[in-house]
Protein backbone atom coordinates (compact mmCIF):
# COMPACT_ATOMS: atom_id res chain seq x y z
CA UNK A 1 0.00 0.00 0.00
CA UNK A 2 2.80 2.45 0.89
CA UNK A 3 4.56 1.51 -2.37
CA UNK A 4 1.42 2.48 -4.21
CA UNK A 5 1.24 5.83 -2.42
CA UNK A 6 4.88 6.81 -2.93
CA UNK A 7 4.64 5.79 -6.57
CA UNK A 8 1.52 7.89 -6.98
CA UNK A 9 3.37 10.87 -5.56
CA UNK A 10 6.26 10.29 -7.90
CA UNK A 11 3.95 10.07 -10.92
CA UNK A 12 2.25 13.33 -9.98
CA UNK A 13 5.61 15.08 -9.55
CA UNK A 14 6.96 13.74 -12.82
CA UNK A 15 3.81 14.61 -14.74
CA UNK A 16 3.85 18.17 -13.46
CA UNK A 17 7.45 18.49 -14.69
CA UNK A 18 6.48 17.22 -18.13
CA UNK A 19 5.72 19.77 -20.82
CA UNK A 20 3.51 17.31 -22.71
CA UNK A 21 1.26 17.27 -19.68
CA UNK A 22 0.76 20.98 -19.93
CA UNK A 23 -0.51 20.52 -23.47
CA UNK A 24 -2.78 17.52 -23.01
CA UNK A 25 -4.17 18.38 -19.60
CA UNK A 26 -4.32 22.14 -19.68
CA UNK A 27 -4.09 23.73 -23.12
CA UNK A 28 -6.11 21.16 -25.05
CA UNK A 29 -9.07 20.84 -22.64
CA UNK A 30 -9.35 24.60 -22.20
CA UNK A 31 -9.04 25.03 -25.93
CA UNK A 32 -12.04 22.73 -26.32
CA UNK A 33 -13.83 24.53 -23.52
CA UNK A 34 -13.62 27.95 -25.11
CA UNK A 35 -14.34 26.60 -28.56
CA UNK A 36 -17.53 24.87 -27.36
CA UNK A 37 -18.75 27.41 -24.85
CA UNK A 38 -17.75 30.53 -26.75
CA UNK A 39 -18.23 29.51 -30.37
CA UNK A 40 -20.67 26.58 -30.54
CA UNK A 41 -22.84 27.73 -27.65
CA UNK A 42 -22.31 31.40 -28.47
CA UNK A 43 -22.03 32.02 -24.74
CA UNK A 44 -25.71 31.33 -24.08
CA UNK A 45 -25.72 29.86 -20.54
CA UNK A 46 -28.06 26.89 -21.04
CA UNK A 47 -26.39 25.97 -24.32
CA UNK A 48 -23.01 26.22 -22.61
CA UNK A 49 -24.37 23.74 -20.11
CA UNK A 50 -25.38 21.40 -22.93
CA UNK A 51 -21.89 21.59 -24.38
CA UNK A 52 -20.26 21.13 -21.00
CA UNK A 53 -21.02 17.41 -21.42
CA UNK A 54 -18.75 16.93 -24.45
CA UNK A 55 -16.10 19.27 -23.01
CA UNK A 56 -15.91 17.30 -19.77
CA UNK A 57 -15.92 14.01 -21.67
CA UNK A 58 -12.99 15.16 -23.82
CA UNK A 59 -11.06 16.27 -20.76
CA UNK A 60 -11.61 12.88 -19.18
CA UNK A 61 -10.95 10.81 -22.30
CA UNK A 62 -7.61 12.47 -22.99
CA UNK A 63 -6.28 10.40 -20.08
CA UNK A 64 -5.44 7.44 -22.24
CA UNK A 65 -2.89 9.39 -24.31
CA UNK A 66 -0.72 10.37 -21.42
CA UNK A 67 -0.89 7.04 -19.63
CA UNK A 68 -0.09 4.87 -22.60
CA UNK A 69 2.81 7.12 -23.60
CA UNK A 70 4.22 7.22 -20.07
CA UNK A 71 4.07 3.47 -19.57
CA UNK A 72 5.65 2.68 -22.94
CA UNK A 73 8.43 5.20 -22.34
CA UNK A 74 9.07 3.68 -18.92
CA UNK A 75 9.34 0.24 -20.45
CA UNK A 76 11.34 1.24 -23.53
CA UNK A 77 13.94 3.13 -21.50
CA UNK A 78 14.38 0.26 -19.06
CA UNK A 79 12.91 2.26 -16.18
CA UNK A 80 10.38 -0.45 -15.39
CA UNK A 81 13.19 -3.00 -15.10
CA UNK A 82 14.69 -0.97 -12.30
CA UNK A 83 11.39 -1.14 -10.42
CA UNK A 84 11.19 -4.84 -11.13
CA UNK A 85 14.18 -5.54 -8.83
CA UNK A 86 12.27 -3.92 -5.97
CA UNK A 87 9.23 -5.40 -4.19
CA UNK A 88 6.94 -3.17 -6.31
CA UNK A 89 4.17 -5.12 -8.10
CA UNK A 90 2.59 -4.50 -11.53
CA UNK A 91 -0.63 -3.43 -9.81
CA UNK A 92 1.32 -0.85 -7.78
CA UNK A 93 2.78 0.57 -10.98
CA UNK A 94 -0.52 0.60 -12.86
CA UNK A 95 -2.83 1.76 -10.10
CA UNK A 96 -0.48 4.58 -9.12
CA UNK A 97 -0.49 5.97 -12.64
CA UNK A 98 -4.29 5.81 -12.76
CA UNK A 99 -4.70 7.57 -9.42
CA UNK A 100 -2.04 10.18 -10.26
CA UNK A 101 -3.86 10.90 -13.52
CA UNK A 102 -7.16 11.21 -11.64
CA UNK A 103 -5.68 13.68 -9.14
CA UNK A 104 -4.26 15.74 -12.00
CA UNK A 105 -7.44 15.69 -14.08
CA UNK A 106 -9.76 16.87 -11.30
CA UNK A 107 -8.40 20.46 -11.13
CA UNK A 108 -8.92 20.86 -14.88
CA UNK A 109 -12.50 19.65 -14.52
CA UNK A 110 -13.11 21.99 -11.59
CA UNK A 111 -11.70 24.95 -13.48
CA UNK A 112 -13.97 24.15 -16.41
CA UNK A 113 -16.98 24.31 -14.10
CA UNK A 114 -15.69 27.55 -12.57
CA UNK A 115 -15.08 29.15 -15.96
CA UNK A 116 -18.57 28.18 -17.08
CA UNK A 117 -19.89 29.89 -13.98
CA UNK A 118 -17.77 33.05 -14.00
CA UNK A 119 -17.34 33.75 -17.69
CA UNK A 120 -20.49 32.24 -19.18
CA UNK A 121 -22.79 32.80 -16.19
CA UNK A 122 -24.03 29.23 -15.90
CA UNK A 123 -25.76 29.34 -12.53
CA UNK A 124 -26.36 25.66 -11.85
CA UNK A 125 -24.93 22.46 -13.15
CA UNK A 126 -27.69 19.89 -13.04
CA UNK A 127 -26.86 16.91 -10.89
CA UNK A 128 -23.29 17.34 -9.69
CA UNK A 129 -23.20 13.92 -8.01
CA UNK A 130 -23.99 12.21 -11.30
CA UNK A 131 -21.46 14.40 -13.08
CA UNK A 132 -18.75 13.67 -10.53
CA UNK A 133 -19.34 9.91 -10.63
CA UNK A 134 -19.25 9.86 -14.41
CA UNK A 135 -16.10 11.97 -14.49
CA UNK A 136 -14.40 9.73 -11.92
CA UNK A 137 -15.31 6.48 -13.66
CA UNK A 138 -14.55 7.95 -17.06
CA UNK A 139 -11.08 9.10 -15.99
CA UNK A 140 -10.25 5.76 -14.45
CA UNK A 141 -11.57 3.65 -17.30
CA UNK A 142 -9.98 5.66 -20.10
CA UNK A 143 -6.71 5.70 -18.16
CA UNK A 144 -6.89 1.89 -17.96
CA UNK A 145 -7.55 1.80 -21.68
CA UNK A 146 -4.26 3.68 -22.11
CA UNK A 147 -2.51 1.04 -20.01
CA UNK A 148 -3.91 -1.73 -22.21
CA UNK A 149 -2.70 0.13 -25.31
CA UNK A 150 0.76 0.33 -23.71
CA UNK A 151 0.63 -3.39 -23.01
CA UNK A 152 -0.12 -4.46 -26.57
CA UNK A 153 2.40 -2.17 -28.28
CA UNK A 154 6.17 -2.50 -28.28
CA UNK A 155 7.34 0.93 -29.28
CA UNK A 156 6.26 4.51 -28.80
CA UNK A 157 5.54 4.72 -32.52
CA UNK A 158 3.11 1.81 -32.39
CA UNK A 159 1.50 3.30 -29.31
CA UNK A 160 0.92 6.64 -31.00
CA UNK A 161 -0.60 4.97 -34.06
CA UNK A 162 -3.04 2.98 -31.93
CA UNK A 163 -3.80 6.09 -29.89
CA UNK A 164 -4.73 7.98 -33.04
CA UNK A 165 -6.88 5.08 -34.21
CA UNK A 166 -8.74 5.15 -30.90
CA UNK A 167 -8.90 8.92 -30.51
CA UNK A 168 -10.57 9.80 -33.78
CA UNK A 169 -13.65 7.58 -33.46
CA UNK A 170 -13.97 8.72 -29.84
CA UNK A 171 -13.82 12.29 -31.05
CA UNK A 172 -16.18 12.13 -34.00
CA UNK A 173 -18.56 9.20 -33.49
CA UNK A 174 -19.48 9.71 -29.85
CA UNK A 175 -21.16 13.08 -29.89
CA UNK A 176 -18.07 14.69 -28.36
CA UNK A 177 -17.62 17.00 -31.33
CA UNK A 178 -20.64 16.71 -33.59
CA UNK A 179 -23.83 16.21 -31.54
CA UNK A 180 -25.12 12.64 -31.92
CA UNK A 181 -28.39 13.92 -33.26
CA UNK A 182 -26.62 15.46 -36.27
CA UNK A 183 -24.78 12.29 -37.26
CA UNK A 184 -25.96 10.08 -40.15
CA UNK A 185 -27.93 6.99 -39.11
CA UNK A 186 -25.10 4.54 -39.92
CA UNK A 187 -22.57 6.52 -37.92
CA UNK A 188 -24.99 6.67 -34.99
CA UNK A 189 -25.23 2.89 -35.02
CA UNK A 190 -21.43 2.57 -34.89
CA UNK A 191 -21.23 5.21 -32.17
CA UNK A 192 -23.40 3.08 -29.94
CA UNK A 193 -20.52 0.60 -29.58
CA UNK A 194 -18.20 3.23 -28.15
CA UNK A 195 -17.78 3.88 -24.41
CA UNK A 196 -17.29 7.55 -25.23
CA UNK A 197 -20.87 7.83 -26.47
CA UNK A 198 -22.23 6.84 -23.09
CA UNK A 199 -19.83 9.12 -21.28
CA UNK A 200 -20.79 12.12 -23.43
CA UNK A 201 -24.53 11.46 -23.28
CA UNK A 202 -24.37 10.53 -19.61
CA UNK A 203 -22.54 13.74 -18.69
CA UNK A 204 -24.95 15.75 -20.82
CA UNK A 205 -27.96 14.20 -19.12
CA UNK A 206 -26.37 14.89 -15.72
CA UNK A 207 -25.32 18.49 -16.29
CA UNK A 208 -27.97 19.62 -18.76
CA UNK A 209 -31.03 17.73 -17.62
CA UNK A 210 -29.93 17.10 -14.03
CA UNK A 211 -30.48 13.35 -14.18
CA UNK A 212 -29.80 11.68 -10.83
CA UNK A 213 -27.20 8.88 -10.48
CA UNK A 214 -30.00 6.34 -10.13
CA UNK A 215 -31.85 7.45 -13.26
CA UNK A 216 -31.62 4.68 -15.84
CA UNK A 217 -29.53 6.69 -18.30
CA UNK A 218 -26.85 7.75 -15.83
CA UNK A 219 -26.91 4.39 -14.10
CA UNK A 220 -26.41 2.58 -17.38
CA UNK A 221 -23.42 4.75 -18.25
CA UNK A 222 -21.98 4.34 -14.74
CA UNK A 223 -22.37 0.57 -14.69
CA UNK A 224 -20.99 -0.01 -18.16
CA UNK A 225 -18.01 2.27 -17.48
CA UNK A 226 -17.39 0.51 -14.15
CA UNK A 227 -17.44 -2.95 -15.74
CA UNK A 228 -15.18 -1.66 -18.49
CA UNK A 229 -12.75 -0.06 -16.02
CA UNK A 230 -12.42 -3.28 -14.04
CA UNK A 231 -11.94 -5.34 -17.18
CA UNK A 232 -9.35 -3.02 -18.72
CA UNK A 233 -7.42 -2.71 -15.46
CA UNK A 234 -7.43 -6.46 -14.97
CA UNK A 235 -6.19 -6.97 -18.53
CA UNK A 236 -3.50 -4.34 -18.27
CA UNK A 237 -2.19 -6.08 -15.12
CA UNK A 238 -2.30 -9.45 -16.91
CA UNK A 239 -0.50 -8.14 -19.99
CA UNK A 240 1.99 -6.04 -18.03
CA UNK A 241 5.61 -6.43 -19.17
CA UNK A 242 8.63 -5.10 -17.26
CA UNK A 243 11.18 -5.86 -19.94
CA UNK A 244 11.53 -3.87 -23.15
CA UNK A 245 12.53 -6.94 -25.14
CA UNK A 246 9.79 -9.27 -23.99
CA UNK A 247 7.35 -9.23 -26.88
CA UNK A 248 3.62 -9.64 -26.60
CA UNK A 249 2.29 -13.10 -27.34
CA UNK A 250 -0.45 -13.16 -29.97
CA UNK A 251 -2.82 -14.51 -27.36
CA UNK A 252 -2.37 -11.24 -25.50
CA UNK A 253 -3.63 -9.21 -28.44
CA UNK A 254 -6.77 -11.32 -28.48
CA UNK A 255 -7.17 -10.79 -24.75
CA UNK A 256 -6.85 -7.06 -25.28
CA UNK A 257 -9.65 -7.23 -27.82
CA UNK A 258 -11.81 -8.49 -24.94
CA UNK A 259 -11.91 -4.92 -23.60
CA UNK A 260 -14.43 -4.23 -26.35
CA UNK A 261 -16.91 -6.82 -25.04
CA UNK A 262 -18.93 -4.76 -22.55
CA UNK A 263 -19.67 -2.02 -25.06
CA UNK A 264 -20.20 -4.52 -27.82
CA UNK A 265 -23.03 -6.04 -25.79
CA UNK A 266 -24.39 -2.68 -24.74
CA UNK A 267 -24.15 -1.48 -28.33
CA UNK A 268 -26.23 -4.39 -29.62
CA UNK A 269 -28.90 -3.74 -27.02
CA UNK A 270 -28.88 0.02 -27.63
CA UNK A 271 -29.14 -0.50 -31.37
CA UNK A 272 -32.32 -2.45 -30.70
CA UNK A 273 -33.89 -0.15 -28.10
CA UNK A 274 -32.54 3.21 -29.29
CA UNK A 275 -32.65 4.53 -25.71
CA UNK A 276 -29.48 6.59 -25.70
CA UNK A 277 -30.08 7.86 -29.22
CA UNK A 278 -33.52 9.18 -28.42
CA UNK A 279 -32.19 10.78 -25.22
CA UNK A 280 -29.44 12.53 -27.20
CA UNK A 281 -31.99 13.56 -29.82
CA UNK A 282 -34.39 14.96 -27.20
CA UNK A 283 -31.65 16.95 -25.47
CA UNK A 284 -30.45 18.34 -28.78
CA UNK A 285 -33.96 19.33 -29.89
CA UNK A 286 -34.64 21.02 -26.56
CA UNK A 287 -31.84 23.47 -27.40
CA UNK A 288 -33.89 25.05 -30.16
CA UNK A 289 -37.23 24.63 -28.41
CA UNK A 290 -36.45 24.82 -24.71
CA UNK A 291 -40.09 25.33 -23.72
CA UNK A 292 -41.23 21.95 -25.07
CA UNK A 293 -39.11 19.59 -23.06
CA UNK A 294 -38.45 20.48 -19.44
CA UNK A 295 -36.63 23.79 -19.81
CA UNK A 296 -33.38 24.01 -17.85
CA UNK A 297 -33.67 26.47 -14.96
CA UNK A 298 -31.33 29.17 -16.18
CA UNK A 299 -32.60 29.22 -19.73
CA UNK A 300 -35.25 31.70 -18.70
CA UNK A 301 -32.75 34.48 -18.17
Amino acid at each position, binding site marked *: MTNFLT*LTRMRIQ*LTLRNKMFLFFSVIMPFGFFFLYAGVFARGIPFVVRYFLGPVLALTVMGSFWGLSAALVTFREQGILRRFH*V*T*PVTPSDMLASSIVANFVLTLPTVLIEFLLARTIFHVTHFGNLVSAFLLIALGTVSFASLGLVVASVTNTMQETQIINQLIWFPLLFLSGATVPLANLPQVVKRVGLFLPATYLVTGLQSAVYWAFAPWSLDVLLALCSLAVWAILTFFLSAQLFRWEPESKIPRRAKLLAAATAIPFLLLGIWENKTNRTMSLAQAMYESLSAPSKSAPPADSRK
Partner: protein
Amino acid sequence: MTNSVIQVENLVKRYGDVEAVRGVSFNVEEGEVFGLLGPNGAGKTSTVEILEGLRTLDSGRVSVCGLDPQSSATELKHSIGAALQSTSLPDKLRVMEALRLFASFYKRRRDPEELLKRFGLEEKRNTFYSQLSGGQKQRLALAMALVNDPTVVFFDEPTAGLDPQVRREIYDIIEELRREKKTIVMTTHYIEEAERLCDRVAIVDHGKVIALGSPRDLKARSGGTTRIEVRLSKPETNGTLKELEGVIDARQVGDTYVLHSQRPPQAIVSLVKHLEAQGNDLISLEIATPSLEDVFIEMTGRRLRD
Protein backbone atom coordinates in the same frame (compact mmCIF):
# COMPACT_ATOMS: atom_id res chain seq x y z
CA MET B 1 27.85 -25.52 1.01
CA THR B 2 25.21 -25.01 3.63
CA ASN B 3 25.99 -21.35 4.34
CA SER B 4 26.43 -20.34 0.73
CA VAL B 5 24.40 -17.22 0.11
CA ILE B 6 23.86 -18.20 -3.49
CA GLN B 7 23.67 -21.69 -4.93
CA VAL B 8 23.37 -22.32 -8.64
CA GLU B 9 23.11 -25.84 -9.99
CA ASN B 10 22.93 -26.76 -13.66
CA LEU B 11 21.17 -23.58 -14.60
CA VAL B 12 19.74 -23.51 -18.12
CA LYS B 13 18.08 -20.57 -19.85
CA ARG B 14 16.76 -20.55 -23.41
CA TYR B 15 15.48 -17.73 -25.57
CA GLY B 16 13.54 -19.45 -28.30
CA ASP B 17 16.02 -21.83 -29.89
CA VAL B 18 19.06 -20.16 -28.41
CA GLU B 19 20.51 -21.61 -25.22
CA ALA B 20 21.99 -18.59 -23.48
CA VAL B 21 22.92 -20.41 -20.28
CA ARG B 22 23.88 -24.04 -20.64
CA GLY B 23 24.28 -25.76 -17.30
CA VAL B 24 25.97 -23.18 -15.09
CA SER B 25 26.85 -24.14 -11.49
CA PHE B 26 28.56 -22.15 -8.74
CA ASN B 27 28.19 -21.07 -5.14
CA VAL B 28 28.76 -17.66 -3.61
CA GLU B 29 29.83 -17.51 0.03
CA GLU B 30 28.92 -14.79 2.46
CA GLY B 31 31.18 -11.76 2.35
CA GLU B 32 32.90 -12.51 -0.92
CA VAL B 33 33.04 -10.62 -4.16
CA PHE B 34 32.19 -13.10 -6.86
CA GLY B 35 32.77 -12.25 -10.49
CA LEU B 36 31.32 -13.64 -13.70
CA LEU B 37 33.88 -12.85 -16.34
CA GLY B 38 33.28 -13.44 -19.99
CA PRO B 39 32.71 -11.85 -23.38
CA ASN B 40 29.43 -10.17 -24.30
CA GLY B 41 26.70 -12.69 -24.91
CA ALA B 42 28.30 -15.34 -22.70
CA GLY B 43 25.18 -15.61 -20.55
CA LYS B 44 26.38 -13.55 -17.57
CA THR B 45 23.49 -11.13 -17.51
CA SER B 46 20.91 -13.89 -17.99
CA THR B 47 22.42 -15.79 -15.05
CA VAL B 48 22.44 -12.75 -12.79
CA GLU B 49 18.93 -11.69 -13.78
CA ILE B 50 17.62 -15.13 -12.92
CA LEU B 51 19.22 -14.79 -9.49
CA GLU B 52 17.55 -11.39 -9.09
CA GLY B 53 14.17 -12.87 -9.90
CA LEU B 54 13.80 -10.85 -13.11
CA ARG B 55 13.83 -13.84 -15.44
CA THR B 56 12.55 -17.36 -15.23
CA LEU B 57 14.86 -20.34 -15.62
CA ASP B 58 14.25 -23.30 -17.91
CA SER B 59 15.92 -25.92 -15.78
CA GLY B 60 18.31 -26.30 -12.90
CA ARG B 61 18.16 -25.15 -9.31
CA VAL B 62 18.85 -21.72 -7.90
CA SER B 63 18.74 -20.40 -4.36
CA VAL B 64 19.52 -16.88 -3.16
CA CYS B 65 19.56 -16.13 0.60
CA GLY B 66 17.83 -19.49 1.05
CA LEU B 67 14.96 -18.44 -1.23
CA ASP B 68 13.81 -19.51 -4.67
CA PRO B 69 13.92 -16.39 -6.86
CA GLN B 70 10.87 -17.57 -8.78
CA SER B 71 8.45 -18.66 -6.10
CA SER B 72 9.55 -16.16 -3.42
CA ALA B 73 10.41 -13.23 -5.66
CA THR B 74 8.86 -10.51 -3.50
CA GLU B 75 10.42 -11.75 -0.30
CA LEU B 76 13.79 -12.12 -1.97
CA LYS B 77 13.68 -8.62 -3.40
CA HIS B 78 13.75 -7.21 0.14
CA SER B 79 17.16 -8.77 0.72
CA ILE B 80 18.90 -8.05 -2.58
CA GLY B 81 20.10 -4.90 -4.28
CA ALA B 82 21.04 -4.52 -7.91
CA ALA B 83 22.61 -2.18 -10.41
CA LEU B 84 21.25 -3.45 -13.71
CA GLN B 85 22.52 -3.14 -17.21
CA SER B 86 20.47 -1.21 -19.75
CA THR B 87 18.28 0.54 -17.27
CA SER B 88 17.40 4.11 -16.59
CA LEU B 89 15.33 6.40 -14.39
CA PRO B 90 12.72 8.97 -15.36
CA ASP B 91 14.48 12.04 -16.81
CA LYS B 92 12.80 14.46 -14.48
CA LEU B 93 13.46 12.57 -11.26
CA ARG B 94 15.98 14.26 -8.96
CA VAL B 95 18.85 12.33 -7.39
CA MET B 96 17.63 12.56 -3.82
CA GLU B 97 14.04 11.82 -4.85
CA ALA B 98 15.22 8.65 -6.56
CA LEU B 99 17.05 7.46 -3.45
CA ARG B 100 14.11 8.29 -1.19
CA LEU B 101 11.58 6.72 -3.54
CA PHE B 102 13.46 3.46 -3.87
CA ALA B 103 14.23 3.32 -0.16
CA SER B 104 10.51 3.62 0.52
CA PHE B 105 9.86 0.25 -1.12
CA TYR B 106 11.75 -1.72 1.51
CA LYS B 107 11.23 -2.88 5.08
CA ARG B 108 14.88 -2.36 5.92
CA ARG B 109 16.36 0.94 4.81
CA ARG B 110 19.62 2.79 4.83
CA ASP B 111 19.79 6.51 5.31
CA PRO B 112 19.64 8.01 1.78
CA GLU B 113 21.52 11.04 3.12
CA GLU B 114 24.47 8.86 4.07
CA LEU B 115 24.47 7.08 0.69
CA LEU B 116 24.44 10.42 -1.08
CA LYS B 117 27.55 11.50 0.84
CA ARG B 118 29.31 8.22 0.40
CA PHE B 119 28.82 8.10 -3.36
CA GLY B 120 29.89 11.70 -3.79
CA LEU B 121 26.51 12.89 -5.03
CA GLU B 122 25.80 15.52 -2.38
CA GLU B 123 26.17 18.41 -4.79
CA LYS B 124 23.88 16.67 -7.25
CA ARG B 125 21.06 15.98 -4.82
CA ASN B 126 18.59 18.21 -6.65
CA THR B 127 19.79 17.48 -10.16
CA PHE B 128 17.47 15.79 -12.65
CA TYR B 129 18.56 12.31 -13.64
CA SER B 130 18.79 13.37 -17.30
CA GLN B 131 21.38 16.01 -16.40
CA LEU B 132 23.81 13.61 -14.71
CA SER B 133 27.00 12.46 -16.43
CA GLY B 134 27.53 8.77 -17.19
CA GLY B 135 29.72 8.35 -14.12
CA GLN B 136 27.24 10.11 -11.86
CA LYS B 137 24.40 7.97 -13.18
CA GLN B 138 26.42 4.87 -12.46
CA ARG B 139 27.30 6.05 -8.94
CA LEU B 140 23.62 6.71 -8.35
CA ALA B 141 22.79 3.23 -9.63
CA LEU B 142 25.25 1.70 -7.16
CA ALA B 143 23.92 3.85 -4.32
CA MET B 144 20.37 2.79 -5.20
CA ALA B 145 21.43 -0.85 -5.05
CA LEU B 146 22.24 -0.30 -1.39
CA VAL B 147 19.15 1.61 -0.22
CA ASN B 148 17.74 -1.48 1.49
CA ASP B 149 21.04 -2.54 3.08
CA PRO B 150 20.84 -5.79 1.11
CA THR B 151 22.41 -9.13 2.02
CA VAL B 152 23.58 -9.63 -1.56
CA VAL B 153 24.31 -6.97 -4.14
CA PHE B 154 24.39 -7.59 -7.88
CA PHE B 155 26.42 -5.32 -10.13
CA ASP B 156 25.90 -6.10 -13.79
CA GLU B 157 28.78 -4.61 -15.83
CA PRO B 158 29.23 -1.77 -13.36
CA THR B 159 31.83 0.07 -15.48
CA ALA B 160 30.73 -0.70 -19.04
CA GLY B 161 30.95 2.34 -21.26
CA LEU B 162 32.65 4.54 -18.67
CA ASP B 163 35.98 6.27 -19.26
CA PRO B 164 39.04 5.01 -17.33
CA GLN B 165 38.99 7.81 -14.76
CA VAL B 166 35.36 7.14 -13.82
CA ARG B 167 35.98 3.41 -13.92
CA ARG B 168 38.63 3.78 -11.21
CA GLU B 169 36.17 5.74 -9.08
CA ILE B 170 33.74 2.84 -9.32
CA TYR B 171 36.52 0.37 -8.43
CA ASP B 172 37.25 2.35 -5.27
CA ILE B 173 33.60 2.17 -4.29
CA ILE B 174 33.41 -1.58 -4.86
CA GLU B 175 36.67 -2.15 -2.99
CA GLU B 176 35.28 -0.25 -0.05
CA LEU B 177 32.17 -2.44 -0.07
CA ARG B 178 34.42 -5.46 -0.23
CA ARG B 179 36.27 -4.33 2.88
CA GLU B 180 32.90 -4.07 4.60
CA LYS B 181 32.34 -7.73 3.77
CA LYS B 182 29.29 -7.19 1.60
CA THR B 183 28.43 -10.17 -0.55
CA ILE B 184 28.72 -8.94 -4.11
CA VAL B 185 28.06 -10.70 -7.39
CA MET B 186 29.33 -8.80 -10.38
CA THR B 187 29.62 -9.43 -14.09
CA THR B 188 32.29 -7.94 -16.27
CA HIS B 189 34.12 -8.37 -19.51
CA TYR B 190 37.14 -6.45 -18.24
CA ILE B 191 39.94 -8.70 -17.03
CA GLU B 192 41.52 -5.95 -14.98
CA GLU B 193 38.26 -5.43 -13.14
CA ALA B 194 37.81 -9.10 -12.27
CA GLU B 195 41.42 -9.46 -11.12
CA ARG B 196 41.36 -6.36 -9.02
CA LEU B 197 37.96 -6.65 -7.38
CA CYS B 198 36.92 -10.28 -7.17
CA ASP B 199 37.75 -12.86 -4.53
CA ARG B 200 36.63 -15.56 -6.89
CA VAL B 201 35.88 -15.53 -10.57
CA ALA B 202 33.86 -17.82 -12.79
CA ILE B 203 35.01 -17.48 -16.38
CA VAL B 204 31.96 -17.89 -18.59
CA ASP B 205 31.85 -18.57 -22.30
CA HIS B 206 28.94 -19.63 -24.51
CA GLY B 207 26.72 -20.20 -21.50
CA LYS B 208 29.15 -22.41 -19.59
CA VAL B 209 31.56 -21.91 -16.72
CA ILE B 210 34.93 -22.85 -18.18
CA ALA B 211 37.06 -22.06 -15.12
CA LEU B 212 36.33 -21.11 -11.55
CA GLY B 213 38.57 -19.99 -8.70
CA SER B 214 40.42 -17.04 -7.22
CA PRO B 215 42.21 -14.93 -9.84
CA ARG B 216 45.52 -16.04 -8.38
CA ASP B 217 44.65 -19.74 -8.54
CA LEU B 218 43.34 -19.44 -12.06
CA LYS B 219 46.48 -17.74 -13.23
CA ALA B 220 48.66 -20.29 -11.45
CA ARG B 221 46.67 -23.06 -13.04
CA SER B 222 47.44 -21.70 -16.47
CA GLY B 223 51.12 -22.07 -15.64
CA GLY B 224 51.80 -18.65 -14.23
CA THR B 225 53.66 -17.91 -17.40
CA THR B 226 54.38 -14.70 -19.23
CA ARG B 227 52.52 -14.15 -22.45
CA ILE B 228 54.44 -13.02 -25.49
CA GLU B 229 52.34 -11.89 -28.41
CA VAL B 230 53.98 -11.54 -31.77
CA ARG B 231 52.84 -10.70 -35.24
CA LEU B 232 54.98 -11.94 -38.09
CA SER B 233 55.26 -10.99 -41.73
CA LYS B 234 55.16 -14.64 -42.85
CA PRO B 235 53.08 -17.39 -41.28
CA GLU B 236 54.73 -19.92 -38.97
CA THR B 237 53.39 -23.18 -37.64
CA ASN B 238 52.49 -23.46 -33.99
CA GLY B 239 54.56 -26.58 -33.86
CA THR B 240 57.87 -24.97 -34.71
CA LEU B 241 57.25 -22.04 -32.37
CA LYS B 242 56.44 -24.42 -29.54
CA GLU B 243 59.79 -26.17 -30.08
CA LEU B 244 61.75 -22.98 -29.42
CA GLU B 245 63.85 -22.81 -26.29
CA GLY B 246 62.05 -21.20 -23.38
CA VAL B 247 58.61 -21.45 -25.00
CA ILE B 248 56.11 -23.67 -23.22
CA ASP B 249 53.10 -23.20 -25.43
CA ALA B 250 52.30 -21.49 -28.70
CA ARG B 251 49.03 -20.94 -30.47
CA GLN B 252 47.60 -18.75 -33.13
CA VAL B 253 44.82 -16.35 -32.13
CA GLY B 254 43.63 -14.40 -35.13
CA ASP B 255 46.65 -12.92 -36.84
CA THR B 256 48.74 -13.08 -33.67
CA TYR B 257 50.87 -15.86 -32.26
CA VAL B 258 50.58 -16.18 -28.50
CA LEU B 259 53.58 -17.79 -26.83
CA HIS B 260 53.81 -18.68 -23.16
CA SER B 261 57.10 -18.72 -21.36
CA GLN B 262 58.50 -18.98 -17.87
CA ARG B 263 61.75 -17.38 -19.02
CA PRO B 264 60.71 -14.58 -21.36
CA PRO B 265 64.22 -13.23 -22.24
CA GLN B 266 65.35 -16.65 -23.39
CA ALA B 267 62.17 -17.22 -25.37
CA ILE B 268 62.54 -13.89 -27.15
CA VAL B 269 66.18 -14.53 -28.03
CA SER B 270 65.39 -17.94 -29.47
CA LEU B 271 62.39 -16.56 -31.33
CA VAL B 272 64.43 -13.79 -32.94
CA LYS B 273 67.18 -16.26 -33.91
CA HIS B 274 64.60 -18.56 -35.41
CA LEU B 275 62.99 -15.78 -37.41
CA GLU B 276 66.34 -14.59 -38.72
CA ALA B 277 67.14 -18.09 -39.88
CA GLN B 278 63.77 -18.34 -41.61
CA GLY B 279 64.02 -14.91 -43.21
CA ASN B 280 60.83 -13.94 -41.41
CA ASP B 281 60.16 -10.48 -39.97
CA LEU B 282 58.74 -9.38 -36.69
CA ILE B 283 55.93 -6.85 -37.09
CA SER B 284 55.16 -6.44 -33.41
CA LEU B 285 56.02 -7.98 -30.08
CA GLU B 286 54.19 -7.51 -26.81
CA ILE B 287 54.89 -8.94 -23.40
CA ALA B 288 52.09 -9.31 -20.86
CA THR B 289 52.27 -10.54 -17.31
CA PRO B 290 50.04 -13.51 -16.52
CA SER B 291 46.37 -12.54 -16.43
CA LEU B 292 42.98 -14.11 -16.67
CA GLU B 293 43.15 -13.43 -20.37
CA ASP B 294 45.64 -16.31 -20.60
CA VAL B 295 43.19 -18.60 -18.92
CA PHE B 296 40.54 -17.60 -21.38
CA ILE B 297 42.77 -18.03 -24.41
CA GLU B 298 43.92 -21.39 -23.14
CA MET B 299 40.36 -22.63 -22.65
CA THR B 300 38.75 -21.20 -25.76
CA GLY B 301 41.48 -20.32 -28.23
CA ARG B 302 39.94 -16.86 -28.43
CA ARG B 303 40.53 -13.55 -26.78
CA LEU B 304 38.12 -12.20 -24.22
CA ARG B 305 38.06 -8.77 -25.77
CA ASP B 306 36.63 -9.76 -29.16
